[in-house]
């Protein structure tokens, strides 16, 4: 793996509300290498989206980054001024959102909105800008780009809108694409197309992708590496094949077991008992202790460090075997 392009180190985010402070992220570290697709998985509320928004400096007003760093090509994005961040957004990093139908303004045409996105970063003559947008729309597989340009969001299907959204995000040739559940709102058949599209564009253009999803199946098909988040902490991180072959954190094992599998037609799906702790900031030990079948006394008192089990397979579990993975 080449030197990481995006390197998040010990990132902690807190939400300050009138009712007190809640921890959103509690020391998340992850790397995205040059030309790599990294899947960020976890259940709702575990901090996937917060991680993505932190990178772009788009956290909600109540959220504060309390420690850690986010380095993009060696430059720390935490604490950057709004105008510097604006150059990063859309320029160095593009983002695709979950619901393409609401990610476009209903009162302007797709073309007008893409021109706005382009205009935020580059001053181009009108004709040149239009040509660039048209080329980009064709590249994301939209037939009749001219018609799409003139269309309003309600005139296009969800799949077409998501393609247009991807085109907007890639317009200024970012080096990193953050895709936050880009296929969750789409049909399964469209989902497969969009995943293929992202994969294909990534190969032809060579950007990196941070792919946020709760769907293990999606992660398995699209990403090179996987980072599993649990309650605002990294539970496990490994190459996709290694993670699915040898999940080393009990939470990852639970997630994989809970995913529906077409081969095993069991009536009841496996589930992980219990709930995510409400505020991980006050959990002294492992955040998964209460739900873990293997938990020992040490788990409740001592927070497990993210250890390298060998070959870059990281897990934050006291019981994860060091030897087992390299083999």
């Amino acid at each position, binding site marked *: 793996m080449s030197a990481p392009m995006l390197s998040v180190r010990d990132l902690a985010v807190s939400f300050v509300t009138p009712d007190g402070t809640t921890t959103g992220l509690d020391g998340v570290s992850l790397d995205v290498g040059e030309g790599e697709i990294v899947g960020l998985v976890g259940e709702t509320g575990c901090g996937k989206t917060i991680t993505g928004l932190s990178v*772009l400096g*788009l956290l909600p*007003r109540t959220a504060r980054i309390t420690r850690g760093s986010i380095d993009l090509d060696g430059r720390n994005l935490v604490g950057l001024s709004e105008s510097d961040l*604006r*150059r*990063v*957004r*859309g*320029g160095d990093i*593009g*983002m695709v*959102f*979950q*619901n393409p139908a*609401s*990610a*476009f*303004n*209903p*009162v*302007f045409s797709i073309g007008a*909105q893409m021109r*706005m*996105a382009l*205009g*935020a*970063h580059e001053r181009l003559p009108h004709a040149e800008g239009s040509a660039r947008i048209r080329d980009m729309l064709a590249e994301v597989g939209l037939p*009749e780009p001219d*018609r799409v340009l003139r269309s*309003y969001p*309600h*005139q*296009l*299907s969800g799949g077409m809108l998501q393609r247009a*959204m991807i085109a*907007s*995000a890639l*317009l*200024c040739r970012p080096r990193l694409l953050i895709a936050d559940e880009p296929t969750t709102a789409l049909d399964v058949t469209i989902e497969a197309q969009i995943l293929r599209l992202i994969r294909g564009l990534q190969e032809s253009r060579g950007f990196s992708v941070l792919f946020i999803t709760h769907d293990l199946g999606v992660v398995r098909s699209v990403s090179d590496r996987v980072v599993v988040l649990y309650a605002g902490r990294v539970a496990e991180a490994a190459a996709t094949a290694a993670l699915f072959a040898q999940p080393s954190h009990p939470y990852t094992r639970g997630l994989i077991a809970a995913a529906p599998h077409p081969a095993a037609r069991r009536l009841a799906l496996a589930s992980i008992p219990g709930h995510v702790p409400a505020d991980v900031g006050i959990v002294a030990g492992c955040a998964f202790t209460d739900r873990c079948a293997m938990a020992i006394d040490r788990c409740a008192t001592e927070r497990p460090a993210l250890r390298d089990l060998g070959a870059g397979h990281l897990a934050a579990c006291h019981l994860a075997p060091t030897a087992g993975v390299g083999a």
Partner: protein
Amino acid sequence: MAAEVLRSATSVARAGILRRFRRAVLADPLALTGVTIITLLVLLAVFGPWIAPYPAQGQGESNVAARMLPPSATHLFGTDGLGRDMLSRVMVGARPALAVSVLVVLLAMLIGVPLGALAGYRRGRLDALIMRVTDLFLAFPPLLLAMAIVAALGPGLDHAALALAISWWPWYARLARGTATSLRERSFVEAARSMGVSEVQILRRHIIPNSITPILVQATIDIGTVILAAGSLAFLGLGAAPPTPDWGLMVADGRTYILDQWWLSAFPGLAIFVAVLAFNLVGDLLVDLLDPRSTR
């Protein structure tokens, strides 16, 4: 083929709003009355000086020989103290009345909408500051505030318009802020931010265009209200000055003779009443038409 279906479906949707407007107007006699009156007012404002029976008198030329004549076939609305045909005066008066109120509402929107949108989009301290300023303005009865401003600037139609706009903008600021606070959470705003679009562009292209519907409804109703307010200022001698054919001024001129020469005040007063009513009727119609929650 699917695209063809889509295209025809959307052209129906786009034609929909005009068709719905027409159908709603035709189905509702009150709304029809309002739209008809507003159309007549606009025609009068544009062509009044040419279609009035005595255009010169409408503008202020006196004809003392025919003073204080009651309504008759030659002077349908009678004549005033300088022998001017009241019908012509009222007809010619439509232009300043509409011009002033449209100007005031536009000015109020121009000040209020960007400030309100900014407050609602930014939230926090700037929001609190802008909203406290609107509170300050709204604490005064609007007419009283406008009177105070005109008194400070000196009377005149232009000063009256400015004063009214200054006392009216906080309504638009509040309205725009309300929609902006909900719009800022919408994902297209977040998407625009994620692409590095600047705050000014987000306000101009995303927030304001999407909050324009309730603002237009308010503006329609306000045009009527401002006609009344401008008339009141003129009545108090703080608005238009003679010989401007201003409805409020005409009502004021006639008030000494209200018992014997009632037509002096009655007809311009009626004109104000009808105009305000018409804009309110159409405003109500727009509320029903544009607000999906209202059922009637």
